[in-house]
């Protein structure tokens, strides 16, 4: 049997320059271990497709927290539904602004629903879809429109990732995946849409240990399984520590802002 279990480095060894890479970025269910490995892989000219492109503060990044900007030096285009790019405490923000202005970085804004429907259109091998979202907004610029049964739609092309990075709670050796809670998010759709899917998991079990009714991503969609090492910077425990640090940092910033306002009043 072909073994799907390998390290992140092995799993990403054949990714090519110019690849379109998709991943979920929404707290739990973010493939941080694989993102880190991809940032160290040397591939360049990536198109990065993610639901959220939220920058962490420099202070948190110095303590190990990462965000999609870890791939920024290798990125030529970002497709994203929600961006949180705070200028004051995230230096990557300035880099993004500068690179967009000088024309070495492109940003394509979509909505969460459009992102998901375009990924799913790719999974179903469709040529395109007519979506109702964005009519009368900035998103219709340059797009083909069509009225069907009296309603106006925008033509949307599928987004087919060359590489899907997926995060799940558990895999069995065959590649069946289960998710817990809201880590599911875009992960199952990315696994189905990508030409090549790598899943990072916190645990690998034997076939038969997962309830066949509860498997969300069947093995056919998973090409490689990477077990996150227990001493990894993105182990379960380390992620909780980083989350708590990030919340404290945010609370502190809010308190500072309030104090400053109080001083002005």
């Amino acid at each position, binding site marked *: 049997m072909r073994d799907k279990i390998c390290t992140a480095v092995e799993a990403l060894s054949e990714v090519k320059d110019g690849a379109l890479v998709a991943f979920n970025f929404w707290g739990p269910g973010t493939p941080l271990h694989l993102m880190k490995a991809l940032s160290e892989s040397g591939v360049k000219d990536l198109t990065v497709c993610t639901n959220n492109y939220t920058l962490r503060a420099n202070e948190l990044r110095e303590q190990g927290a990462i965000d999609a900007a870890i791939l920024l030096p290798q990125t030529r285009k970002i497709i*994203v539904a929600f961006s*949180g790019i705070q200028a004051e405490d995230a230096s990557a*923000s300035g880099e993004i602004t500068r690179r967009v202005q000088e024309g070495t970085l492109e940003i394509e804004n979509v909505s*969460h629903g459009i992102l998901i429907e375009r990924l799913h259109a790719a999974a179903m091998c469709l040529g395109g879809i007519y979506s109702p979202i*964005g009519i009368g907004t900035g998103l219709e610029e340059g797009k083909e429109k069509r009225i069907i049964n009296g309603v106006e739609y925008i033509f949307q092309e599928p987004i087919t990732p060359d590489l899907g990075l997926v995060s799940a709670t558990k895999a069995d050796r065959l590649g069946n995946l289960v998710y817990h*809670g809201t880590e599911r998010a875009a992960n199952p759709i990315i696994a189905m849409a990508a030409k090549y899917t790598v899943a990072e998991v916190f645990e690998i079990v034997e076939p038969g240990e997962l309830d066949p009714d509860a498997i969300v991503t069947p093995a056919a969609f998973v090409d490689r399984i990477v077990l996150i090492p227990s001493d990894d910077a993105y182990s379960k425990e380390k992620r*909780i520590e980083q989350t*708590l640090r990030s919340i404290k940092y*945010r609370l502190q910033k809010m308190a500072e802002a309030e104090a400053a306002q109080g001083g002005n009043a």
Partner: protein
Amino acid sequence: MKEKLTEELIAMRAARELVPGDCCNLGIGIPLNCAAYMSEGVLVQSENGVLGYGPVYDRESLDENVERVDWNVVDAGMRYLEHVPGMSFFDMLTSFVMIRSGRLFSILGGLQVSEKGDAAIHSMSEVDIASKIGGSMDLAWGAKRLIVTMTHCSKDGDPKIVRELTMPVTTRKRVDLIVTDLAVIEVTGSGLALKEFAPGWTPEEVQQQTGATLTIANDVREIEF
């Protein structure tokens, strides 16, 4: 000096639009406060893939609850959620089918609403390059009923209810109800109808703070709490 409604009171009034059995998505900002005032039996949805959630962990106390918190369960705004009976988790494709297909009420924050029911809901990011559209366009387009909650005027005192939007459009002709710190206004086929006004205010005073013409509903009355 006349008081405007607090964000809590705006949220309380908006939450009253829902009855048990309804499903609802709450946007960032004032809408998030609605959760506390919802009737029991309203199922709250978040676009990352959860329906039927209840209390949210207080950020201040998260590190005291490290053992109890389920770190895999957040809403779209990254708030950690307690487990409650009847909750379900699903992927974003299922989530956006739910959002688009008229099964959810959407209560969203607003930057501007026009008399036609157009709304500017999402802002651009701090550096004005990437947008913060998120789920707002889908939520606004597909809502069973779209309720926008916001302050009646901007910090600079400019009316946020206007004839034509001047800010980036999130949705066209979809707003059903506007709940502000001064009024409850229905968007009808023939314009804006003032239904309720904040205690101590008059319909005329509300009109003065509004950038579009209000028709005064026959049964106009003070907002009751």
